[in-house]
């Protein structure tokens, strides 16, 4: 007890010093932090949305739509490939499978070769070749049945999520807000958290739109009640583009001249009458293609279609050669810049639906922080007074290490970049109560040994030694609960689990090592004959 090895003293002091330095930035204002020496830690604790206000959205990616699109495109690819080999067939999609029915069954072998060639290996990496996207079988009667593989769908789903996250990030960054958190959650879900933002409608407008843009030629002279000729499709006009006497729908050729993928830039601009419009620029290939098509179709109408709605259907008055253009429509400054942002950021590969939404206003956030602070400080003060009254000098040591303990929790939280939430504050306050437990176990043990007639110094020794195994058992069990909470908890609950787990670790360190060191210093200096405990 009395001879505490020097390396241990150095280590304990060093660890606590580093931990405390990591906590310091939390007590400085941003201005003070700017003048703070560079070699010291600068990170502050990240506040959860419940403490600083903001929007939390959990969105589900519509994977059935992804599957449907994939089936459609696979069917078209294979059909075209087969026709290129002069194989005559009919194809259809039923129950998520593609059926190819050959007119001449003797071409079956050749057809299967073509399908073999159309298999794509997806999700490949340096180490693996990936998985086949489709598999096929031949039914009795010679019908070839192609279906998407399970593994391929999983890979495709992951791709869609990753792409969606990219697009969402670009869109939110374009809004100029700070530090959004966008991440994959489980399978098929994306979590978006935007701190300091309290307009969920606006946020959903920005990230909820698929923003699929296409340019398609209008098939003229087809009335609203006429049948749509093959190779064409009908789209509704946007509300702002409907005029009395004009049809509400428009029929266009299925073939897309260009899509949003060919855009390199888009944004708010004004036409000659000073009305807001969206200007855009194509990439090189897109510009060339657009020039070709407009040259050949002067005086025809083309439609600009966004997410299944025609937002504009201008006449081609002269070939558009510069590779750029404007979209007119009934835009306001706001809607035009919003559309510009969406086009710049690109289309989402799949539709997103909001399954969970939480918005905390900035007032509530600051109220929560205030309440949490008050509760923590008063709770801490009351606990400290009680401990001092119970243990006297030893209580002072406990109170000191308890303060260090709290600083260490903040230091570790800041360094890990963990998020402090309202339940997290509860976790800290609870740690204050429970951190004392290790000290209590030790002091009660010292008291017991002392009253049994042991000498002062050896009771101190015995107290620390005998309490140790109990402290381990008691803390490991709580730690297990914290870990499981972290694994299964979501959002704010995770924050609680993190602070609880960190609190257990730091309280073990401070109660067992640090308080022991201080008490041994005290014992060496005072050589107490009697213990007041």
């Amino acid at each position, binding site marked *: 007890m009395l001879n505490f090895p020097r390396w241990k003293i150095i280590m304990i002091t060093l660890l606590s010093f580093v931990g405390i330095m990591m906590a310091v930035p939390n007590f400085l204002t941003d201005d003070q932090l700017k003048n703070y020496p560079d070699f010291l830690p600068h990170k502050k604790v990240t506040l959860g949305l419940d403490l600083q206000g903001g929007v939390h959205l959990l969105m589900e990616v519509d994977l059935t739509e992804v599957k449907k699109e994939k089936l459609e495109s696979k069917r078209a690819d294979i059909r075209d490939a087969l026709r290129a080999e002069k194989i005559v067939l009919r194809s259809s999609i039923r129950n998520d499978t593609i059926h190819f029915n050959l007119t001449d069954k003797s071409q079956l072998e050749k057809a299967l070769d073509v399908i073999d060639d159309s298999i794509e290996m997806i999700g490949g990496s340096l180490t693996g070749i990936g998985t086949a996207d489709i598999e096929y079988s031949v039914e009795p009667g010679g019908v070839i049945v192609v279906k998407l593989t399970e593994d391929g769908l999983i890979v495709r789903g992951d791709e869609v999520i990753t792409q969606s996250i990219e697009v969402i990030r670009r869109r939110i960054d374009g809004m100029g807000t700070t530090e959004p958190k966008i991440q994959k959650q489980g399978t098929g879900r994306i979590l978006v958290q935007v701190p300091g933002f309290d307009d969920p409608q606006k946020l959903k407008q920005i990230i909820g739109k698929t923003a699929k843009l296409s340019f398609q030629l209008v098939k003229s002279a087809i009335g609203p009640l006429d049948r749509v000729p093959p190779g064409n499709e009908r789209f509704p006009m946007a509300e702002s583009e409907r005029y009395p006497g004009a049809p509400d729908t428009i029929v266009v050729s299925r073939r897309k001249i260009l899509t949003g993928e060919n855009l390199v830039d888009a944004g708010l601009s004004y036409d000659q009458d000073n009305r807001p419009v969206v200007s855009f620029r194509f990439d090189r290939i897109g510009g060339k293609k657009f020039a070709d098509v407009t040259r050949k179709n002067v005086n025809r109408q083309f439609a600009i279609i966004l997410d299944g709605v025609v937002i504009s259907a201008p006449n081609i008055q002269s070939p558009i050669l510069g590779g750029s253009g404007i979209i007119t429509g009934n835009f306001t400054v706001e809607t035009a810049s919003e559309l510009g942002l969406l086009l710049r950021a690109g289309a989402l590969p799949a539709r997103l639906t909001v399954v969970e939404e939480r918005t905390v206003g900035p007032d509530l956030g600051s109220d*929560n922080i205030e309440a949490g602070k008050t509760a923590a400080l008063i709770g801490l003060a009351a606990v400290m007074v009680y401990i001092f*009254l*119970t243990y006297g000098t030893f209580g002072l040591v406990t109170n000191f290490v308890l303060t260090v303990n709290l600083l260490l929790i903040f230091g570790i939280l800041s360094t890990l970049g963990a998020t402090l939430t309202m339940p997290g504050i509860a976790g800290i306050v609870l740690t204050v*109560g429970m951190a004392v437990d290790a000290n209590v176990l030790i002091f009660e043990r010292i008291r017991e040994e002392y009253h049994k007639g042991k000498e002062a110094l050896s009771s101190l020794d015995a107290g620390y030694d005998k309490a140790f195994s109990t402290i381990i058992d008691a803390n490991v*069990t*709580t730690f297990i609960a914290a870990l499981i909470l972290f694994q299964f908890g*979501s959002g*704010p609950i995770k924050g609680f689990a993190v602070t609880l787990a960190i609190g257990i670790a730091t309280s073990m360190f401070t109660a067992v090592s640090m308080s022991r060191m201080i008490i041994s210093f005290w014992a060496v200096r005072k050589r107490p004959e009697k213990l007041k405990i």
Partner: protein
Amino acid sequence: MLLKLVPENTHIKFINYRKFAYVLSAVMIVMAFGMYFSKGLNFGIDFEGGIMIEIGTEGPADIGAIRSALSSLKMGDVKVQEFGAANDVLIRLEHQEGLTVDEVVEKIRHILPSAIEGEISYRRTETVGSTVSGELIADGIMAVVLAIGAVLIYIWFRFEWQFGMGAVIALVHDVILTIGMFSLTGLEFNLSTIAAILTIVGYSLNDTVVVYDRIRENLRKYRKMPMVDLLTLSINDTLSRTVMTSVTTLIALFSLFFLGGEGLHGFSAAMIWGIFVGTYSSIFIAAPILLWVEMRREAYDVDDNSGNIEILPPN
């Protein structure tokens, strides 16, 4: 003079009251089940799905007026209640068929000014879809079950299976009574409640383990002492620690309950209850259960402690 809530060298015969404690616990468990099946739990939107809006008003809000204004929207069962203060109102409703969440919120925002004077601040809006709420329930139950399971394994490993059994019975007891308390008081049962239950599991276990640790130690020390006396001695040995830790934790929790804001009310209430129940169960349930299961006391007659792992302090 130092403060002592528990006098030194107590000899309270806790174990002698065990029959009474069993009856008390059994009655409370039956009542908890009764409440649960008759009244159920007041699930928050985390577990039930739905829409919740918290608003702040300038003056005290007229709950009745808000309720009647909202009922004119014909959106089914709309709950309106004060949330901590007279100018803080919580509105809760189910998902509306055929309307998106935004449309519902829009309608509510449109009608509220007719029932509330002055500015309305929208403090918080939450919506949870039904698939998500189902998963949250599943995850919550999973977490509690896993935590209890993991702890059973740990105690089994560190002590003996009899101790593991006792600890788990005490834990299940605590969890049931906590859920019963939520049913009785109608406090909202949400994700933080699950966190509270898990913390109670941790705390109660902490308490049980401290008592068990002492029982194990005394089993080695007093090999001939009758089991009843040995349990009584162990509980008394650890009594002042039990009280001390409970009091410090309770001080912190009461501070949270009264000062921590409305958001932590349910959590701290559950925890306060849990501290009482957890402490009670360690003394009156977990310890006497060791009388039922046959303890192999010979295991403690050998000095090498085979079967147990001893953890030594780092010094």
